[in-house]
């Protein structure tokens, strides 16, 4: 394939056009950044949809895998659990950081950073437990997923608890 010389101004013009559609002002690195940003733009034949479901982990786990077959991009998640025995929960200090609810959002071209100073975080993950604490964490994987992985950093999901979720994404 032939090689071409392209001016920086022309590349910037293309990048500006991409940014105007993707709603971000982030720098785009050629070529992977351009390709990735274009892939994030919802176009003809694609549509935002929601997947509802529930998952019950068999063992205590710091990660909850949410099956979301068929989505190319995840734009947000919400989840909560059922049948929590709050009295038992609160008596057991070891269960202090079990997740009972989480919200993750993806606005612009990246997961919304919960902590703007920590650019290693790909997303915003807000979870809460029975004692009223809230934590922030990251959506661990989301690109072209069969599973969205939620959690990490020791915030457990409890075996036998059923977590209900809604995942918003692009098909």
């Amino acid at each position, binding site marked *: 394939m032939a090689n071409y010389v392209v001016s920086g101004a022309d590349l910037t013009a293309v990048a500006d056009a991409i940014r105007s559609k993707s709603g971000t002002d982030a720098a785009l690195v050629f070529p992977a950044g351009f390709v990735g940003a274009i892939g994030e733009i919802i176009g003809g034949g694609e549509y935002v949809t929601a997947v509802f479901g529930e998952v019950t982990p068999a063992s205590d786990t710091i990660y909850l895998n949410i099956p979301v077959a068929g989505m190319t991009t995840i734009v947000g998640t919400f989840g909560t659990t059922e049948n929590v025995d709050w009295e038992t929960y609160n008596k057991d200090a070891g269960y202090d950081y079990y997740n009972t609810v989480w919200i993750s959002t993806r606005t612009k071209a990246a997961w919304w950073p919960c902590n703007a100073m920590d650019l290693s975080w790909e997303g915003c993950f807000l979870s809460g437990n029975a004692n009223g*604490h*809230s934590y922030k964490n990251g959506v661990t994987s989301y690109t072209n997923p069969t599973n969205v992985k939620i959690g990490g950093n020791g915030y457990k999901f409890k075996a036998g608890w059923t977590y209900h979720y809604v995942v918003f994404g692009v098909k």
Partner: protein
Amino acid sequence: MYYKNTEDAYIVSISKGAGEIEISAAEYKDILAIIRSAPAAPDGYIYLLRADTLDWELAENPPEPEPPADEDIDEAEAYNIIFGGAE
């Protein structure tokens, strides 16, 4: 639709709506009952559910980090995360 989700030889979860291996409602109910009656594992161990026999298998559970103190956020910050809008 009912599913079981496996990793190696173990069932890691069961799910409704989407999942890895489709199962019947009766099998889902049976596995859910097994999960919810799991024996308590001693400290430092975890029970894993074998996919082939539906028996519990005791395995070492590596210590997990406690949530860092600076990740416990107050109500105002939580509100801002949800409703404050992206920068």
